């Protein structure tokens, strides 16, 4: 029965909501400190990859082993282990989901998973909550790396490991034109797979051998794929713009394109 003040109530509710939302937004860091270190780790992994394209070189008793590339809903995860004196000295993700919120999730989860792996010395590690898919993919890839280590130890003793990741072993570069088909990238609407023709170190042609179909996906595919093909040829690499309105397809396309480029580049 207290007197009601409708206008006061509206003003109060609006002010409280707006300031609450602004406060929440401003409390979030503008860039995650973990993402910088993750980026660092990724680039060092890339550097390591260039030095040892075959994936498994032994240097001073340390061995690196790459796990299988594992498909997750949000992209590919691949783990590289550095083993020294029979122990996992270092774990890194040489591939992890990218783009959109995946960047955040990767930045959040990968460093933690790396740490856990070194601590556990096995694939029996906790998933990072909020990055379940990435964690699951990570664990699968990690397990395959550990399996390879075991095999290598069993077949024994040739000093340097011969195991290598599945994605880094294929094809060496040729001067002639060749076609390379990228890995299938799963998207929410269906698989995307890209085939590129490379000639003289350049992409001369890009096409999607698989793309989402059915329902609105037909329209989206018709809309986006030709554009993505063009962009891929123009850019010569996988850093192309997503087609707005077909974000998932674009992301999948870029993933598959990247894997094709990886293979072409050997």
């Amino acid at each position, binding site marked *: 029965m207290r007197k009601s003040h409708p206008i006061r109530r509206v003003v109060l509710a*609006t002010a409280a909501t707006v300031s609450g939302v602004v406060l929440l*937004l401003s409390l*979030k*860091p503008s860039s995650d400190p973990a993402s910088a270190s993750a980026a660092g780790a990724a680039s060092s992994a890339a550097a390591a990859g260039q030095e040892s394209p075959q994936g498994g070189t032994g240097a001073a008793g340390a061995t690196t082993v790459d796990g299988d590339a594992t498909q997750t809903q949000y992209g590919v995860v691949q783990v590289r282990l550095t083993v020294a004196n029979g122990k996992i000295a270092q774990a890194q993700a040489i591939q992890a989901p990218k783009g959109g919120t995946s960047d*955040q*999730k990767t930045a959040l989860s990968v460093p933690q998973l790396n740490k856990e792996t070194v601590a556990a010395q096995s694939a029996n590690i906790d998933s990072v*909550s909020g990055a*379940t898919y990435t964690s699951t993919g990570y664990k699968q890839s990690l397990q395959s790396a550990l399996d390879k280590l075991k095999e290598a130890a069993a077949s024994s003793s040739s000093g340097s490991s011969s195991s290598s990741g599945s994605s880094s072993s294929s094809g060496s570069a040729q001067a002639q034109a060749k076609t390379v088909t990228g890995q299938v990238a799963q998207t929410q609407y269906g698989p995307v797979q890209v085939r590129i023709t490379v000639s003289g170190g350049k992409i001369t042609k890009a096409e999607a051998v698989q793309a989402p179909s059915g329902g609105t996906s037909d329209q989206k595919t018709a809309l986006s794929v030709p554009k993505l093909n063009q962009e891929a040829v123009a850019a010569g690499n996988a850093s192309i713009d997503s087609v*707005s309105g077909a974000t998932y397809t674009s992301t999948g396309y870029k993933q598959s394109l990247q894997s094709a480029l990886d293979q072409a580049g050997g």
Partner: protein
Amino acid sequence: MTTTLAGGRAARRQTMRRIRPRRSPAVPLLLAVWAGAAAVLWLWWHNTPSIADQNGKILNAGRITGLLAGYLMALVVLQMARVPALERRVGSDRVARWHAMSGRYTLCLVFAHVFLIMWGYALQAGKTLNDIVQQTIDSVNQLPDMGKAAIGTGLFVVIGLTSIGPVRRRMPYDTWYHVHLLTYAAVFLTFWHQITTGNDFALTPMAKTFWYGLYGVVTALVVWYRILTPIRLNLRHRMRVEAVIEETPGIVSVLIGGRKLHRMGAEAGQFFRWRFMAPGMRFSSHPYSLSAAPRPDMLRITVKAIGDHSARLRELRPGTKVWAEGPYGAMTASRRSRGKVLLVAGGVGITPMRALFETLPGAAGDLTLLYRANTTQDLALWDELAKIANERGARLMYAVNSPEGERPDISAENLQRKIPDIDNHDVFMCGPPGFAQGVYEALRGAGVPARRIHHESFEM
């Protein structure tokens, strides 16, 4: 003399033993609502490690408003599910006010969410705020379940517009009511995009489970209490109009017969939503209080002919089938915390007061009824009240305008003079809003604490 006094004291003790004031569950319920809102915000917080730029801020503001809107929407529907704990313990009037308030707030959140998310997507696609319309069309076409969500949001716009005060007052009640029922469709249509496109539900499968749980429980409660419970009630009790009696010019009582009516658990002070199966009346139900304690074979409502519906009640024929939902309302004896009770009625607000006057336990001198009307002719049910007062040893007072049309002065001083220990009373009050507001202030001035003034008001 001594024996009567002792008897009076014993009777009073007897009464006090029966008084167990039940606390309204409003405070724990509100705490639970806030805790839920905090959990929803935590979900967002947990899934958002950082926000890179302006665009991210807009998108995340859209996510926060969307999550809160989705959460509150379930509660807005829950408030109208006629859950007994809300209707009978918190009070139908209070819950209806919560519903109106939270409904408006939630719709504002929905519209803010749509605007912010589409703006954010437009920026993400390298466009500007000016392209928001095109962006919205694209998103509706391309994202899963967004077509449904767009239709649902359109319904929300219509529902929101028809619920704005001046618009609603100009509309027939039935039209407004049937438009308002579209809320269920709108909530259903907008639910699915939350699950399929919601960032936080993709990242936290557990949250998805909770969301299904929240909406599932609300749906179950609506189906149970709004559909199944009334069907069972009416199949069991088979109510019909027995007679229509003109009490005073413009005020009629409707006697309603049925089977085992005492089994409905209705108490004095409560009301039902009535639907009379007569031409022009069967499509809308209206809340009317019981104006007498329920009897096993008979209920009575007393209604003033103010609207279309209540004016038609006069023409009801005996034998007309009645569909009732209830009992609802929290203004019952269980609100009482003191031995002494003052009942205040304004005009046709006498109906629940009349029932309480008859049934509230109390010794002689414990009960007082103050009845305000324009003239003595307008004091409906006066003869019954006088009889009850006489039998129970209760006080009955009335206040009417003077022959010159001067209004009686119901002030703190006057109340204190008539009822010296008024600050030791529970007060039950029913009347038009202006009257109720005036009496409330006078009672507070006379020292009655707010928690002991029990009032029901269906004004928004």
